[in-house]
């Protein structure tokens, strides 16, 4: 335990150093260059893992808006990811629609489901949202399992991949770059949102809901914005997931999936972009490094979740509160 505290102290020191603007931008530039150059020397296995990491970074950043920025617990995040994936899957494989045209549909559908779930629930105590989203996640999975248009239990196969600037997306490094661009967009949007009027309202609500309302912030409206924006992040990530995998099945969207995304956000540090990116990285790399853990992985994740909340609720790389 003492060792752990010493380690976190050390990391806090590193984050302090990163507060210096020059050092920070230097590090960011280095990281981005490294990421861009990686496909030149890495093998397919490494690229596959990294692509998977980028994908989870996008999902985690989306959930971070809900959990980290607005302080709401969403336990059915995989449902929005499923809605995006199935929307793209159905539109492109059944109706032969171009991939890029399916994205607006994903956005609208995941946004609408966010409103349907969040609208009635966010008026009530915030804990209700947690259990309603938990139910929604499970129900979405059941619905796609039972409908015929979603391919039932075996899922959808043969989703068409798109062409970008004349290049047919098929190789792993295509997806590597595509998801990395998605990560950059997600980071940019998250950053801009956090420092906007909306972001400040969320922080206020998170810290003191009654005071926020007394200041004239419509808490229900702003919470709903956070929830719906988070849902849309999940939907878009789902669309890209569908074309990368070309096949999707209901079992991808089980509760464990939502719990893992939540764990990454909590582990890395709720509300802080680098923390969330780090959390997503740990989430993907952990099972690759510790293969022996295997089936009991989620057991360990549960314990980690409890330990973090009790001993370091701010996560590994916490948000700097002003």
């Amino acid at each position: 335990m003492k060792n752990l505290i010493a380690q976190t102290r050390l990391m806090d020191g590193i984050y302090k150093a990163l507060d210096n603007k020059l050092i920070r931008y230097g590090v960011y530039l280095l990281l981005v260059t490294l990421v861009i150059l990686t496909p030149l020397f890495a093998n397919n296995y490494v690229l596959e893992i990294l692509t998977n990491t980028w994908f989870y970074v996008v999902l985690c950043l989306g959930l971070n808006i809900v959990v980290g920025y607005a302080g709401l617990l969403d336990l059915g995040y995989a449902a929005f990811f499923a809605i995006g994936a199935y929307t793209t899957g159905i539109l492109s494989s059944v109706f032969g629609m171009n991939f890029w045209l399916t994205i607006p549909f994903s956005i609208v559908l995941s946004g609408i489901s966010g409103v349907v779930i969040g609208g009635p629930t966010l008026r009530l105590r915030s804990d209700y949202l947690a259990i309603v989203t938990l139910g929604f996640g499970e129900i979405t999975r059941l619905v796609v399992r039972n409908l015929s248009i979603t391919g039932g239990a075996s899922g959808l196969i043969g989703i068409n991949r798109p062409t970008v600037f004349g290049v047919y997306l098929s190789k792993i490094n295509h997806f590597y770059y595509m998801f990395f661009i998605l990560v950059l967009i997600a980071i940019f949007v998250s950053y801009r949102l956090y420092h906007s009027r909306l972001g400040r309202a969320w922080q206020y609500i998170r810290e003191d809901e009654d005071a926020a309302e007394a200041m004239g912030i419509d808490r229900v409206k702003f919470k709903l914005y956070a929830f719906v924006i988070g849902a849309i992040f999940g939907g878009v990530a789902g669309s890209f997931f569908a074309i990368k995998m070309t096949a999707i099945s209901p079992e991808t969207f089980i509760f464990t999936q939502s719990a893992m995304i939540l764990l990454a956000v909590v582990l890395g540090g709720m509300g802080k972009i680098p923390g969330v990116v780090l959390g997503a990285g740990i989430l993907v790399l952990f099972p690759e490094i510790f293969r022996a853990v295997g089936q009991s992985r989620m057991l360990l994740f549960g314990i980690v979740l409890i330990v973090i909340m009790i001993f370091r609720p701010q996560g590994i790389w916490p948000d700097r509160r002003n």
Partner: protein
Amino acid sequence: MSLQEIILQQLINGILIGSFYSLVALGYTMVYGIIKLLNFAHGDIYMVGAFVGFVVLGLVSGILGAGWAGIIISMLASMLIVGLLGVGIQRVAYRPLLKAPRLSILITAVGVSLVLYNFVMVLTNGEFMAFNTDLSFAGIDLGSVRVTYTQMILVIATASLMLGLHWFINKTMYGRAMRAIAIDQDACRLMGINVNKTIALTFFVGSALAAAAGVMAGVYYGSINFFMGFVIGLKAFTAAVIGGIGSIPGAMVGGLILGLLEAIGTQLPMVGSEWKDVFAFVILILLLVFKPTGILGKSEIERM
């Protein structure tokens, strides 16, 4: 089967399943009432209860057989063990966070749920376990519908557990302490009530009831698995909301209503049994839109 017989059959199913929902919903609503926590692990506690009962029944069936004597012993043992487990969970995972922001304790509850769920999954290798008993299918025939003695005894057992709880909450000193803490924790502390002990007791009672429901579900369905708590956790929450969360009679009534609605709902055209869980969830959403305080809930508006 004639229409009346179908309805009768579904009424019996509804009451039986509904009484399981009620028992689990009671734990939700009691814990919520006292510390305003939605205990996500509660469905898993029900599942663990079923497994503990299964193990104890295996141990005692050599002496007592797997008839009612063995079942009652294993149910009581499971209630005691799982009740203590509930207290342990409260002590380790929830008590340190009672003063922390709400989000922390909700996340810990998810962690506890993951731990219980996956622990049993690893232990059982993800397989179904046959909950073998010596109970017969004898019963009373009403037309072509048979009400087995097992079903009747299970309903009587849940009813007596609920009556017992009702007496405990309303007539004993501990029950009074629980009700007082639900109203004003700080005032109770000043009045010399041991708040931590009373909260622990609430977890004990709530978990023990869930364990009883778990064992009875094992007896009724004849098979248990590690994921049996997940959906019932959601249903029990729905039942608690139907009755008005925080209200103990509400949870009892809510469970029965949900059980009956589900049993009847699956008979409607377009709503087959594969849509049963979706049906319950739609009820929950509609309720939250139109009557979030439930039937017997207080109409106060609470905030985080």
